[in-house]
């Protein structure tokens, strides 16, 4: 009985002390800080201290976090993406890479004398939670938004950001509507652009005459690419002989789709999907003796890192991606090393997009002469103008420029997998 009471009191006290920390209007930059606060609070509760003292302790931790502010002030950048749930891989990659970029910029003296501060909020890949995360960041006095990571959430948040005239730069929100307002820009290609670019690439290089497509109809990214691919295919010297869909609820057995592709005599299979499913498709195609070329988009990036996947199966797979972790240019090597050192994981293209997003914000701030004491709306107006004038050499492309409609212009890169590594084509 006493145990139960104790656990109740403990949980309550922990919650109370943390709420007090939030109320002080300060935020932790990374997840680990939050955990530290929790641990501290828990330890103190165990020591049966008064709740008031705990609140004080939480405030102290918060003050410590605020301490290293430079003279030029702090530019608060908010980030939103899924760090829990099924899409956590993408959100976590964006959070980690953005933190690396922010740390690098701060170490090099910041932007216009300001230091950058990043606070990343989880949205669980749910539009409603994403708007909540956006509002949380607003309470934290966010000045620029780097997010959101996923398309559906981004459309909902863009609506709120438009109402507040908040500058929004999404690293990876690829649906068309993500940047429909003039305050929103993106780093990645839009879905239609990827679909069109893929079709043009296959056509221009005469890779195939009969193409089969296997796509995820329940995924915005996948179906978005497929639609534009199919529309552009009409103008190209190849025909789509089979277009087979699968859904998120049914993505382990692809023999039906592959059999149809085989029966239709396809000589290339286009896979606008993520790498987890693609690895299964490649393995099953091999078992069926289906010997065609495979072509994918940036979602296939990471396929070589899938556990228990025979990389020999991916031999000859072509993919259109802005980023390959084993590229040998200085920037990529430096970034991959920093990422591996900090998080002992290989960064994917989401991470690269986020890294570029932070540097883009930096470039735009320098161009527009943004200072930390400007209001959010003024910053947004200044950055809107600056975005169309800057050129960024990033991980995902050299000489990236933006048009006023928010779309980036950069050359699509195609890579082919040979000898278990990505090679530029």
């Amino acid at each position, binding site marked *: *009985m006493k145990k*139960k009471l104790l*656990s*109740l009191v403990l*949980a309550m006290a*922990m*919650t109370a002390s*943390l*709420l007090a*920390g*939030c109320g002080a209007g300060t*935020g*932790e930059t*990374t*997840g680990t800080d*939050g*955990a530290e*606060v*929790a641990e501290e609070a828990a330890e103190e509760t165990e020591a049966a201290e008064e709740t008031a003292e705990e609140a004080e302790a939480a405030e102290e931790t918060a003050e410590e976090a605020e301490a290293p502010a430079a003279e030029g002030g702090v530019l608060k950048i908010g980030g939103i993406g899924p*760090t*829990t*749930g099924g899409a956590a891989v993408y959100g976590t990659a964006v959070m980690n890479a953005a933190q690396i970029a922010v740390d690098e910029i701060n170490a090099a003296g910041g932007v216009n004398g300001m230091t950058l501060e990043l606070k990343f*909020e*989880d949205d*669980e*890949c*749910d*539009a*409603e939670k994403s*708007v*909540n*995360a*956006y*509002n*949380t960041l*607003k*309470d934290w006095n966010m000045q620029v938004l780097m997010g959101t990571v996923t398309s*559906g*959430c981004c*459309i*909902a948040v*863009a*609506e*709120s950001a438009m109402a507040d005239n908040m500058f929004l730069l999404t690293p990876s929100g690829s*649906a068309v*509507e993500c940047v429909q307002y003039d305050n929103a820009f993106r780093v990645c290609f839009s879905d239609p652009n990827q679909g069109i670019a893929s079709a043009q690439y296959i056509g221009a290089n005469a890779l195939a005459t009969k193409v089969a497509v296997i796509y995820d*109809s*329940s*995924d*915005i990214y996948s*179906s*978005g690419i*497929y*639609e534009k691919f*199919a*529309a552009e295919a009409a103008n190209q010297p190849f025909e789509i002989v089979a*277009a087979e869909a699968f*859904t*998120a*609820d049914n993505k382990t057995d692809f023999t039906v789709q592959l059999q149809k592709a085989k029966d239709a005599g396809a000589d290339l299979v286009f896979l606008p999907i993520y790498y987890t499913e693609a690895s299964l498709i490649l393995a099953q195609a091999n078992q069926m003796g289906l010997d065609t070329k495979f072509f994918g988009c940036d979602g296939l990036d990471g396929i070589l890192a899938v556990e228990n996947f025979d990389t020999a199966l991916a031999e000859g797979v072509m993919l259109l991606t802005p980023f390959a972790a084993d590229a040998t240019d200085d920037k990529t090597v430096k970034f991959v090393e920093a990422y591996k050192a900090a998080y002992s994981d290989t960064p994917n293209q989401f991470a690269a997009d986020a890294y570029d997003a932070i540097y883009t914000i930096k470039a735009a701030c320098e161009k527009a002469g943004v200072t930390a004491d400007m209001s959010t709306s003024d910053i947004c107006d200044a950055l809107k103008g600056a975005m169309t004038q800057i050129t960024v050499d990033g991980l995902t492309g050299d000489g990236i420029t933006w048009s006023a409609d928010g779309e980036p212009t950069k050359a699509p890169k195609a890579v082919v997998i040979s000898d278990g590594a990505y090679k530029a084509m």
Partner: protein
Amino acid sequence: MKKMSKVTKNNLITYAMVIAAYIVMEILLKTGHVSSLLQGLLVPLCTYVILAVSLNLTVGILGELSLGHAGFMCVGAFSSALFSLTTKEAIPNGGLRFLIAILIACVAAAVCGVIVGIPVLRLKGDYLAIVTLAFGEIIKNLVNAIYLGIDSKGFHFSMKDTISLNLEPEGKVLIKGAQGITGTPHSSNFTIGVILILITLIIVNNLVHSRTGRAVMSIRDNRIAAESIGINITKYKLIAFTLSAAMAGVAGALYSHNLATLTALPKNFGYNMSIMILVFVVLGGIGNMRGSVIAAVVLTLLPELLRGLSDYRMLIYAIVLIVMMIFNWSPAVLDMRKKLAAKLKKNQTEKEA
């Protein structure tokens, strides 16, 4: 007579609680004391309260288990969002358009309720739980497969992709399969939400204490006895279940008009959501409408207020759920609470003496 007044008093306390919360929030909003987070949460709170109350009608009053409440919400959300999107130009008055959208959501969800209810509610046992579970998943997948467009020739429909809609170049795609509906007008607000909560509560409370409500409860308590006195079991079950579905549809309309995007993900309209609503009901007290309101508010606010913990908040959320469950339902704790209450009372009387 005395008993009647007690029931009325109890209901009035619930209404007064909702109205008081509304007034306090409005004053805080006007004076600018509410954080953006809470401002953004107000409409979702109303949505979940309505859902909890409507499910409590099925679970608490009718005594049937429904595991597909999010499905009815989904039907309401999509039907109303579709209506608002197509009539954006035709009905410039936002309030009127939203009112019609709510009614459409209500009717659409009710129709689904009847369709599900007619075969299932004739049966004895847990069949409703199984069928509603399937219904929720079917609706979610169905919505994900629908493509609907509009151009000068009228509506175009496809289950394949937007290309097969054969739209004219200036035609507009309304539902884009998995991408759902985008660009729903932002018509929901806190005031409308609270009005809908009050209407829901009044409907449920009045139903419970009406002849129909007593018939429904008699079925819950003893089906054979109810049958023996000539109560039409299927009819009364269907009334309660359809009403519950219709109110979930209204909540769906409120939900869809609060966000610019509406997609049927497992997260918002899937099985997990249905269970979430059931958790509100169970923690708030089965059959206790006021409890449902409070539980829905607390459990929706909690994960957002715990954001300071970042990824650990889900863990704490689970612990809080367990603690709340023990506090509310464990016989030992209930005993202790009773003893504590008695002690307090004794102290008070001693003091007075």
